[in-house]
């Protein structure tokens, strides 16, 4: 039981936070899918990773919501790639999600912190 619950918790957490992760990764500048994938993996020290099968549908979903925008970019000597950038609405969502996340983390810390104190 505990095991299953933990797994569900894990999955939900990941799903919820994945959006936040992607949005914040392209905040500074547009990136393509492979780059995003790599960044998540490297920055989390390998703790988080996305498969193609889950990353791209998520990107398309965010694009459909109008939070990010994908664009084919051709650079000299390279094949064209699709870069995703944050839209104005995406920026708003990111800010909101970020603060929600921070307060969530803070809350968790308060609870777990006092328990351990």
């Amino acid at each position, binding site marked *: 039981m505990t095991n299953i619950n933990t797994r569900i918790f894990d999955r939900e957490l990941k799903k919820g936070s994945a959006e936040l992760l992607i949005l914040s990764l392209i905040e500074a500048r547009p990136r393509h899918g492979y780059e995003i994938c790599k960044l998540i993996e490297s920055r989390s020290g390998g703790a988080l990773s996305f*498969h*193609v099968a*889950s990353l791209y*549908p998520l990107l398309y*979903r965010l694009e459909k919501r109008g939070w990010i925008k994908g664009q084919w970019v051709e650079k000299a000597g390279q094949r064209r790639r699709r870069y995703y950038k944050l839209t104005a609405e995406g920026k708003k969502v990111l800010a909101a999600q970020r603060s929600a996340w921070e307060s969530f983390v803070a809350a968790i810390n308060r609870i777990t912190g006092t328990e351990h104190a």
Partner: protein
Amino acid sequence: MPEWKQEISERLRGLRLEPAREAEITEELSQHLEDHHAESLASGATPEEASRATLAELSDSELLARELRRVERQVAPEPIVLGTNRRKNMIADLWQDLRYGVRMLMKKPGFTLIAVMTLSLGIGASTTVFSVVDGVLLRALPYRDADGIVAFSEVDRRNGQSSLVSPGNFLDLQRRGQVFAETACARPWRFEIIGQGEPEELNAWLVTDGFFRILGVNALRGRLFTPEEYRAGNNQVVVLSHRLWQRRFGARPEVIGEKLIFGNASFTVVGVLPPEVEFPENRDLWSPYIIPNNAAQVRVRGFLQTVGRLKPNASVAQAQAEMEAIAKQLAVEYPGANTNTDLKAVLLRERLVGQVRPALLVLFGAVGFVLLIACANVANLLLVRGAARQKELAVRMALGATRRRLVRQLLTENLILAALGTVIGALLANWGVRVILGLKEGLPRAGEVGMNWRIPVFAILVSGLTALLFGLIPSLQLSSPDLQNTIKEGSQTTTPAGLLRRLRSVITVAQIALALTLLVGAGLLARSFASLLRIDPGFRSDNVATLQAHIFRNYPKPEQQAAFFEQALEKISALPGIQAASAASAPPLIKDSIDVEFKFGIEGRPQPAPGEEPTAFHTVVTAGYFETLKIPLRQGRLFNQTDNAGAAPVTIINESMARSYWPNENPTGKRIAVQWNQPALREIVGVVADIRHTGLDSAPRPELFLPHLQQPFGSMAFVVRTADDPGTLLPSIKNAIWSVNKNQVIRHIVTLDQLISQTLEDRQFNLLLLGIFAAIALTLALVGIYGLISSSTGQRTQEIGIRMALGAQRGDILKMIMREGAALILLGVGLGLVGAFALTRFLRTLLFGIEPTDPITFLGISLLLVLVALLACYIPARRAMRVDPMAALRYE
């Protein structure tokens, strides 16, 4: 290196994405996989390891497709095949049905036009009548707790005639009534405005304390009367009606506090009433009524409008029971006045609209019939059209459409028709209500007829039901076509011949039956009206003008009153174009005259028991009155100028009075004791013919006439016969009267012809409306039978051709077809007669001179309907008769 693109597109195949989008996704994902693969190789993996690791990115074969399906739009949603059994997309189906329906209707503009017109006629007519019924009969009165307000009346037990309440009886019912929280009365009054242009008179109600409380009315502006103002000396105050406030005072708010001069007294305006206060009837203003001390003795002349508010738990039935008990007590206490008097308490609403209820309900019922016939007609049209669409429906069914789905499609088309019919019907109703209110001026509560939520709800309900009614039967019938036969190329397009014809026959029979019922109703009203017009009123109303003058205030003494009328008549007679001029206290048809029934005594006969005394209506007339109205003299002589104060007291009676009290004797020369304000024993010098006093439909009544020189009276109407149209002479007649006294108010200036047509207005209105409804019904029913016969002969062209080829004569064919029509017509007429017998009794109160089952009307209308319906059959039958056998056989 594996072919990444192929791996991906295999996984995407099931999604059926748009090709461009699929290519885009494939490109993006394969790049990712290539990068991944290259990186694996760069980090030292073997090609096999790198490929395996990269493929793992795609995870199991389903995940990608599953995830993408949630995000990506699929290729144009699969086309909705009409009649498929997909339930998941009701809205899309409905939209599809609507568009398809509109397209189908546009394809047949003739059908659509006729169907929509028929429906809007039915819906428009029924909504019109409903609006009126709603405003007049259904809506609550605009008074607080209106169902607790009762109105009282006196009823003469001998003839059932009801009248208003006399002051004495009012005081007693006020004192003795236990079930009322409060009772109050209003008496009509007049205020004269003199010295500002033509002298004018305002109609007023004098009301006792509590009257407004019972109605639950508050002032719109200012206030109503205070208790102090109901005391003598403080009562010089008035409240204006909303109409007078608007008309004469320009709706100025500052009018409150202003003083109005009436006659020689001044009254202060304290308030304005809201517009909806129309009880007892809309008058110009209101003032406090202080019941005089001697009122308790006045019991014979009811002139008070009286109302009471029931105590919280009391019912009208209790109030009525109490009234009966009080009437019994009063009959014992005042045998002379009250022996035959019943007191009656009814809901105020009943008092206001009880009179028009039967007519309105009859019209409402009639319009319901029209609606039914309209539905039947449209159902008929749909059936015919459905037969033509049989093949289309069969194809759709073959393609997998369920019956359910087809019925829905057909119902949707019907709903479109109904919706169009409702919109146009609503516009018609809007116009129709105005026409009705214009036609029926005296309709009580007419001001309350108008838009409210109930009317659109009614219209939508009617049209929804209509759509179901006219649409469902054909739909059900159509949606089980015989697939095999219909779909065969070249087969006749009219498969369900038997069932279809039977259904259409049933509908046609029903239409004829309904139309006959309405026609009989209209016929009864028409015959009533005709027999009314044949009634001789007993006087000649052409070229007669009447002008009424109340002169009590200007001429309080009897001699002055006699002198005023004599002088005025002299002036009027001197005008050019005047043939005769006279005056009477109560000439026929003038409602606001003082027309009273009194007791009289007959010389030489024993004193009758109290309440059994002979009575007659008493009218004071000038010499020349009978000549002016051309009322024939039957016996003796008419009045002349010598029947004056110095001469022997005389009287003239009418034939009814002579018949009632001297059945087998000559009444002239007999003497009767007449108790007008100067009681005298008067000799009967003449007998004149009866007249219909209050209208052509009123019965003659015993009447006696007094010469005004012997019995002057301060309220008489001038009756002037002119050579030409009296309208042009009215100004000079008025001036002639004002030349005697320029301050004399003249009221009710009208011609007798106008008054007669006013008395006919209600019947005319009922007849007109019912006639229109019956005409619509007849037309629709004829169209129905014509359509049925002509389409049935059309379908049988081939059969007719064969018959003729085998030797049938044209006459045989005609007979065959006419027989089919005649069977339907006779069945319809038979059923209609049964319906009419059952329903025309509701017309009883609207009829005059005939019974609700008048055989002439029933027979005549039936014959008429049979004849015109046969004619409607004859036209297509004749066409069939001319069929060329060869052509018919080649027709295939």
